[in-house]
Structures are given as structure tokens and as C-alpha cells.
């Protein structure tokens, strides 16, 4: 299929663009296969350069011959285009609609994007599982790399290489995979070097109504415990929901068969509910009625902050088991691809100082979200403005980023990255010129040959010129576990995402700049002080030498 077929009117003059924080501007609208471009005719500069894949929904209105298209983006921005001529307007609208909902991944922009920058480090090879494993293998010999999933036959949503307990051979893993939802047998997610405890994750066990068992599964899980130690299985569903899952072939670990493990149920909402919550929240944020009670009421009714609290609470519980109780944990919900990953990744943010650095956080995203098989393609296909009742969309990843932001807000000096880094990740998960977030798992990414055909997000981000935008000037490496407060008073709406287009951040940005300047100046002065101190010390020793003889 050619894009040209979808573009009936490639160019319209005298279009007026309205967007947040800028005065309306008149110019020429052009549609290309992947972009909507508006350039003002006077000086031929682009005023707007919008990816079609960033468009979540459009509305059109007509007043006489003047048509208006309202474009709602996946990053929650709302743009308005006034287009003279009804036919042009209709053509543009139908083209945008078609181009923003292309079915085939290989037609998406990342397959066409050719970077204008020099690639210093290929992001596709920045975070290899083998390298990650090396970090652990120096500390423990209880784990090994397994290539059992090399062909993606054992578990389609796992990467080819996983970390498993050393005593368990690949044959046993194959058997365990048949006992776990989607073949997601328990694998290592995090090794806590301080006390050797681990976080594992998996899919739910397929016990079904007749209480099926799997000896290999029991053996695998027990093999991770040291002698005399106990472990916790954190189920991200309530007991009730977990019991109901048995009717559909799922279930949970029976305590009798896993005697050293204690099961804890923590209820985190499943993805369809989260999507509704997002839609309500964004609606509330766009509410123009200027009524305080109504705003607070709608904010509460969206339940967004309740979900944040649930997720953070569970992550804290997991971290507590590891750090305070000295116990290993296994985390799963149903599929093990959503709430499970939220909990394992947030627990690592709490426990592991490395995951609070830029590099470490990228590695975490790569390991715990991309490799671990969070279905980005499905979850991020549409955002908060989508009208069609799609089944798979859900802001699972956005909730994770929001939780990280809450911790960042409470510990502003403990993170190497700033809020902009999180916002950037949110944007690219939903619409991007890079291939990183395409596909639902490694298997799909391999088939799409993303490594060969597209550019990795990390290749772009990790260049010094980009990194400087994402670096937190307040960062001071903190080697401690950081315990966030989950009291409802401590959790706040993430303005940088949800009120980003409603209120100009001009003054906040200026303040941020000023803060950076002060910190830079302070560093300079410190450096001067050090030089002077050294000079003084040298002079004193010289004096001493002159006096002593």
C-alpha cells in the first residue's frame, strides 16, 4: 500500500493553527506519510511537526465553509486547525484518521526514519542480558544464564536469554513453562547484593479447579531459597480474584506444596480499569468549569492516585521483604506482564541505587519492561482520548513512570535523571521515531528485524547533548535504600504530564534554569576553594621546609 493513496489532499493553504501557549498562526498545512506539518508562509519555518502516530483522536466541526479539526494527541495535547473549504477539511480529516491508525507495524515511522545525528553507541547493544548477568555473577554462583527460550518456543513473551537457578536444567524449565500462564516460568528479576535475596517473577500457576501440581515448579522455586530460609510469594491480585482465576485454568500456589513460602495478596487493578481511570483523569484535567469542588471530586473519582498508592504500597512491601525481612520473593499476577513488572521494577528503584542513575534506569526499562515482555504495542496503541472501546490499551507503563516521579519528588537528590527524562519515555512509548517500544515482546521484535531496520531510542538519548537535558542537577549518589511515603497526603498529581498543556510551565522552567545556574556557580566556587586550599597547603609546607633547616 502506498501512503499516497491515503492522502487525498496533501497541501492546504491559509490554515490557522491554535495550540497551547502560542498565538494562533496561519500557514500551509502539508500531509506526508508520517507527519502533519504546518509552516507559516512568511518565513518558511515549520510551526508544527506532528507524528501521525501521536494522534489519539480527531473531531471535526463546520461553520459555513470553514472547517475545524481538533487533534487530540497521545501526550494529551490538544491542537486545533481551522481549514478553509469543506472538501479539503474532510479530506485532511480522513487522511489523518487513516494514517494515525495504520495496522501494519512495518509501515510505521521508525522504519523510515534516518537519523541526522552521528551514532556513537548503538543502543540496541547497550544493555545485553549477558552484561547484566555479569553484574550478579561476581556476587553469586547460585544462578545461571539459560538459552532454553532461544527460539521463543518455550515462552513467546520471554527474551531468548533468562536467568534461572543453577540447579534447574533446561528440561525442567520446559516442564515448568507448561505449568505457568503464557509459559512464563519463574526467572530472576533482581539480586540484592547486600544479603543475597532475590526477586523473581512469573505468570500465574495453572492449577485450575482440580489443583494441578508441578514437581519441577516446586523444585525450581525452592531451589532459590537458602537452607532454613523462608520466602514470600506476592500475588498482585486479591485472594478472591486469585481464587476465581482457577475456574479459567489459572490459580495460585498452594501453601501445602510450597511449604517454605508464604503467600501475600495485594490488589492492583488490572489493565482495563486503569485505562478508564486515565480517561477520567485527563477529562478532569481538561475541565474548564473553574469549580474547586468539582475538580477535586473528579480527581478523586478517577482513582488515579489510588492506583499509584496501591502499586507503590506493593512495591514497598516487596522491598521490605527483601531488605528488612531478609526473604526472597516471587511476584506474579495473572499474565505476569503488567502489575508484576510495575512491582518488580519499582522495588528495584527503592532497593538498588544503580537503577536511580540514567544508565541504570535505562537498563531497568530494557530488562524489566522490554525484555520481560510488557506488550507495549497493545497497551500504548491508544491513549486517553480514544473513543473506540479497544480491549488492550492501558497506561500500565505511565503508572510506573508516575510512581517513579512520586519517589523522585520525595527524594529529589537521589536520582541522576530529572522529570523530563520520565516525560520523554512516556512520549516515546506512545509515539516515536525510534524502534525501541515497537512490538509486544522480543520475539516480535526479532521477526520485525528492528535492530537492523530501526534506530534505538538509547542511541539518541545517550549522546551527551541529549543527556544534559535529562540530568538532575541535584543528584548526589545515595547508596541507601529509599523508602517512599505512600500516605495519600504524600502523593500528588503529576502536573508535568497531566497539566502540561493546560498551564504554561514558563516560570517553573525559568526557576529550574536559575537553580541549575546556582548549582553550577556553587561548583565553580567550590573548585576555586579547593585550588586555594591546595596552594595554601603547599605554601605552608614550603614555609615549614624553609624554617626547619
Amino acid at each position, binding site marked *: 500500500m502506498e501512503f499516497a493513496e491515503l492522502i487525498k489532499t496533501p497541501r492546504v493553504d491559509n490554515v490557522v493553527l491554535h495550540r497551547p501557549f502560542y498565538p494562533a498562526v496561519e500557514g500551509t498545512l502539508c500531509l506526508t506519510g508520517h507527519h502533519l506539518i504546518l509552516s507559516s508562509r512568511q518565513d518558511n519555518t515549520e510551526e508544527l511537526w506532528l507524528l501521525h502516530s501521536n494522534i489519539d483522536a480527531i473531531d471535526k466541526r463546520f461553520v459555513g465553509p470553514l472547517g475545524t479539526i481538533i487533534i487530540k494527541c497521545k501526550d494529551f495535547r490538544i491542537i486545533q486547525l481551522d481549514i478553509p473549504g469543506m472538501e479539503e477539511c474532510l479530506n485532511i480529516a480522513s487522511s489523518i484518521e487513516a494514517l494515525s491508525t495504520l495496522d501494519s507495524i512495518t509501515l510505521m515511522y521508525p522504519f523510515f526514519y534516518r537519523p541526522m545525528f552521528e551514532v556513537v553507541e548503538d543502543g540496541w547493544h547497550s544493555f545485553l542480558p549477558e552484561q547484566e548477568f555479569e553484574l550478579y555473577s561476581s556476587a553469586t554462583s547460585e544462578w545461571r544464564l539459560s538459552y532454553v527460550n532461544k527460539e521463543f518456543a518455550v515462552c513467546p513473551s520471554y527474551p531468548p536469554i533468562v536467568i534461572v537457578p543453577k540447579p534447574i536444567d533446561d528440561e525442567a524449565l520446559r516442564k515448568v513453562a507448561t505449568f505457568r500462564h503464557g509459559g512464563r516460568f519463574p526467572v530472576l528479576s533482581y539480586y540484592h547484593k547486600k544479603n543475597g535475596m532475590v526477586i523473581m517473577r512469573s505468570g500465574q500457576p495453572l492449577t485450575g479447579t482440580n489443583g494441578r501440581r508441578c514437581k519441577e515448579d516446586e523444585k525450581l522455586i525452592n531451589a532459590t531459597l537458602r537452607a532454613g530460609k523462608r520466602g514470600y510469594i506476592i500475588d498482585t491480585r486479591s485472594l478472591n480474584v486469585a481464587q476465581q482465576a482457577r475456574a479459567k485454568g489459572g490459580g495460585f500456589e498452594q501453601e501445602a506444596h510450597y511449604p517454605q513460602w508464604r503467600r501475600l495478596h495485594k490488589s492492583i487493578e488490572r489493565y482495563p480499569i486503569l485505562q478508564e481511570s486515565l480517561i477520567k483523569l485527563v477529562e478532569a484535567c481538561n475541565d474548564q468549569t473553574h469549580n474547586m469542588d468539582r475538580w477535586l471530586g473528579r480527581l478523586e473519582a478517577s482513582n488515579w492516585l489510588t492506583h499509584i498508592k496501591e502499586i507503590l504500597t506493593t512495591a514497598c512491601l516487596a522491598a521490605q521483604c527483601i531488605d528488612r525481612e531478609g526473604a526472597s520473593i516471587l511476584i506474579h499476577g495473572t499474565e505476569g506482564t503488567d502489575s508484576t513488572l510495575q512491582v518488580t521494577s519499582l522495588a528495584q528503584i527503592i532497593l538498588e541505587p544503580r537503577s536511580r542513575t540514567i544508565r541504570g534506569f535505562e537498563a531497568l526499562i530494557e530488562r524489566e519492561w522490554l525484555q520481560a515482555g510488557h506488550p507495549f504495542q497493545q497497551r500504548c496503541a491508544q491513549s486517553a482520548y480514544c473513543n473506540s472501546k479497544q480491549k488492550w490499551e492501558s497506561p500500565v507503563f505511565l503508572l510506573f513512570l508516575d510512581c517513579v516521579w512520586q519517589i523522585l519528588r520525595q527524594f529529589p537528590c537521589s536520582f541522576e535523571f530529572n522529570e523530563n527524562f520520565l516525560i520523554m519515555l512516556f512520549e516515546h512509548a506512545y509515539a516515536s521515531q525510534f524502534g525501541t517500544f515497537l512490538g509486544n515482546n522480543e520475539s516480535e521484535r526479532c521477526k520485525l528485524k528492528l535492530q537492523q531496520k530501526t534506530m534505538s531510542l538509547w542511541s539518541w538519548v545517550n549522546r551527551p547533548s541529549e543527556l544534559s537535558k535529562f540530568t538532575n542537577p541535584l543528584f548526589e549518589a545515595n547508596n541507601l535504600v529509599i523508602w517512599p511515603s505512600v500516605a495519600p497526603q*504524600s502523593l500528588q498529581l503529576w502536573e508535568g504530564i497531566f497539566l502540561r498543556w*493546560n498551564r504554561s510551565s514558563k516560570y517553573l522552567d525559568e526557576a529550574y534554569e536559575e537553580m541549575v545556574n*546556582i548549582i553550577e556557580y556553587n561548583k565553580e566556587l567550590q573548585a576555586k576553594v579547593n585550588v586555594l586550599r591546595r596552594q595554601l597547603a603547599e605554601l605552608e609546607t614550603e614555609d615549614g621546609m624553609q624554617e626547619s633547616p
Partner: protein
Amino acid sequence: MDEIEVSLTGSGRGPRSEVLAVGGGNSCETVRSLLPRGLLNSCPAGVASCPASSCPFRSPRWPRLTLQESVLLLGPRPTPSAMEFSELIRTGRAQAKLLRGPEVPPLHGTLCVTGHHLLLLPGPQATSDLWLLLLRSVDSIEKRVSGDSGTITLRCKDLRVLQLDIEGVEATRDIARSIEALSSLESVITSFPFFYRPKGLRLGDAWHFHPPERYYKRVARETNAWRLSEVNEDFSLCPSYPRAVIVPRAVDDDALARCARFRQGGRFPVLSYHHAPSGTVLLRSSQPLTGPQKRHCAEDEELLWAVLAGARPGARGFILDTRSAQAAKQARVTGGGTEARAAYPGWKRLHRPLERGRPLQESFVRLVEACGYLEQSTDCWRSRLEACHWLGHVKEALSTACLAAQAMEREGACVLVHGAEGTDSTLLVTSLAQLILDPSSRTVAGFQELVEREWIQAGHPFQLRCAHSAFSHARPKHEAPTFLLFLDCVWQLGRQFPLSLEFGEGLLLALFEHAYASPFGTFLCSSEKERCLCEVRTRTHSLWSGLNQPKEQRKLRNPLYVPSPLAIWPSVEPQSLRLWQGLFLRWTRPNLQR
């Protein structure tokens, strides 16, 4: 060995200061023995023993005291044989453990109650300093006894909650009773500011920093249409105004006297702020006493006419009534009312209802209650936050101030603000409008001047409004957190414009604390008249001189400040307003790093 400074007055005059060494064996007795005794002997109105030179009530310049005023100044029982503090202190000392919240280690030591303070002297092996709490800052006290020990929970006016575990049931009861009695003393002249003599400060300093005369000098540079009137020199015209006020040059003092009779509490329209760029002014007053017969006052009408005549040519005027049209109408029954449109040509009336009085206090109480429950669901917290309406009040106050500022800057109109008494929501609006428009009021000095001029001198009854904070069990009579609401609005401005205020959250927190309980005299009393009667200016230290010491200044300044000559227009969309965590969650969430 630690040093604390305890100061005392001999017989109500000639304060002297002594440095007391604490930390030795019987230092408690030392502290007690230094308690001021017989202070009140010096001066209940007109008693013979009163040395004429120092007694404020003798001078013929002073008007007679009303009953309410004498109760205020001297406490409810002004008897010649006035009680001494020592009568209220039943137990001098007890062993106690002090818990100050989850993140701070407990303190062990000897607890003593003095006339104005609760002291905890750490044991000999302890490394920490002496701990000191101003009794006036205790809002409510709760005691429990079990076995042979007791627990006292103190809830302070700055919203802090402290717990004291005390050895001995009798000691617990006695200490609780003493704290209760001493923290609720109503007399002004026996309050701590009259005894506080800090090192490095001189009495009388800084009191003359911000009088109306100083502001008039600035106005006079900008326009010729206004004059400084001393018509209220002896406070007889308006007891809640300062001696000098700024009025239109065209109106003489006799006319002002007649205006005063037409306005509630004598608060005739005076200048609050002159906006030089647009040549317009902000005025404030109280409601006109039109009453059911719709009374007129020609002088009042002339005064407002003169305002328009003195402003830029062709200026219109807006009367911003901080009550709803309905409430303003109803006020006529009790003698109040609003300006009749026909009588004030050129002026247009707008109604912007702002909450005041008891509902505002209740909103504050409910908000603080909600903030105290840490173990609750998000839903529960959000609905409590919504139910207390505090943020709604913040929004209304800011919107009304924006309206006033907009009328001046954008429409080039003069604005008169009043509600009923003109001492609460009126001041909220006029002071916020100045912050929006006037860059100089956003500096540290300018903001202090603003608070002094628009709140303290303008007669906001701090003594009544800030008698209790959010924890008091007593039914609120005159309490209302109007000033706190003002500070919250300023905080919202600072949050939206992080570069525009020279001061930081620290100054706002300090003003909140000192308005409710302070060793300084600045927020004492409810009007200039009362402050004169109590000789606050000569016998207490000014908060401004305390705050303007270099070591304090560092904590109060905003390092990001960049002066800007522009108006700052805050967003008043509900989405843009936030709970002031630094104040309301200050003690429950100490781990917020920034």
C-alpha cells in the same frame, strides 16, 4: 553548659536582662526563682500605686477604656491583687520523655513549667540542648494517666503535636493544669513579649520601619492628589485605624469625621495602594451604614467622587463588595448595607462573596484533621480535602484579588474594597492585589511593609482571630484563619512564579507561627489603639528586627529571586492550586526533602 537568656521585669518597668546558666544540678529552681512576680501590681487602670510616668492609662491623651478593652488588656479578672504566675504553677519539675514525631529521637530530661515556657532540661549525660516551648503556642492539651505515670499530648498552634511521658500521676495532673491555665491567659501585658529581651536586639528598633507615613512618602512622589491626615490622632474617629491615614487631598478632616460616622466602626475609605503606572488607586473601608432607611452621607459620596477626580482623567470606579448581593442587602436590617448606585456616579458595584468568620475557621479545623490521618485510603483523603473547602477559599480569595488588580491595571479603574467590618476579607483582597501588581511588595522588606501596613496597622484583629488555632476544643468565638489564608495565597503565588518573590516559604511559615504565638510584640493586640495603650512599641521587640538579623535572613530568602517590574497574574484554575504541604503537612511529613 548551655546558656539561655531569661529576662524579667521588676515592677512592670525598666526591664533588665540576665544570662542564666542551665545544665547544672538544681537549675530548675534557678529558673523558677527568676519568675516575674507581682507584675500586675503596677497598673490596672488608675490604681494609686501606678507610677504616673509609665502608666499608659494616666495620660490625658488616652481615651477611657471600654470594658472589652480592659478585659483584653488585663485579662478577665483585673483585680488589684492580681494573681502571680507562681500560683498557676503547681509542680515545678518532673522527669519526662518528650516525643516530637516519628523521625526525631525522643528527649529525656527534667520538665519544668515557668511563667511562659515549658522547659525540658536534658540529663547530665545528654548531648542535646535545652528544649523550650512557648506556652502561648499550646492550642490544646490532653492528659491520660495509667499506673504511676502519665501522658500529656500537646497540640500546638503551629500544628505540631508533641507527646510528654511524665513520671508520677500527681505531677502529670499538676503540669497539665499549669499548662492549661498559663497557655490560655488572655492578658496582653503579662504575655511573654513584655519579658523577652534577646541578645543583640534593642527595644524600639524596627518599630518605625513601616508606619503609614513612610508609605505616604512614596505615594506623594507619585501623585499630588492624596494627603496624610492625622484626624485619627487619638483614635476617637476610628478605633481600628492607625493615627495617620492617607485620604484624598480635596477632603478635609471635618468631612472625614462625618464619613467615619457613616461607616461601620468608623472605617471611612482610605488609600491602600496607589498604582502609579495606571494612575489608579486601591481603597478600603467598611460597609456604609445605610440601614433600612437607606441613609445617605454627602461627605462619603464626595470623598469617592474626589477619588475619581484625582485619578487619571476619565477613570471609573469599582466597589468590590466581598459579600454576596444577598448578604449585603440583608446587612441593612442590622444597620449596614451597600452604596446606592445613584448616589455614587462613576462607581459600579461588584459582589464577590468570600468566606469569613466561623465557616473559615471550621474549614481550617477540618483540613488539619484530614492531614492528621496518615493511615487512610486515597479516596478518603481526597474526599476529606474536598469536603473542607479550604482550596475553594484559596481560589476565591485569589480570584477576587485578581479581579481588583485587573480592574486597576487593565481597565484603568479605581477600586474600593469592603465587606462588613472591613478588617478581614477586605484586607485579604487589598494585600493580594498589591502583591500581584506591585513588584516592590514582593521583596522581603516590601512584603514586611505590606503585612505591617495592610494587616497590622489596618486593624486586622490578630488578638481575636489568632487566639486559637485548629486544635482548640473551645467553640470558636472570634477565631478565623484569615491571615493564614492570605499566607496560603501568597504561597500559591510563589509556587506559580518561583522567581518573582524575594522571600521563600520560610518567611510565610515564620509569619504564621508568630501570628499565633510569638516572643515578639508585632502581632499583639487587635489595633494600633490597643498597641499604644499597652505600649507594645516601647516594651516589646518587633518581629521585623528579629527576622531581619543576617542569620535569620538566609533562611527566609528565595535564592532564585530575580526582580521583575511586571504584574504577576496567577492562574486560579482549580487544577493550578495545591495544598500547602510545607505548612499543613509540615510535622507529619518531615522527610519531604524539598
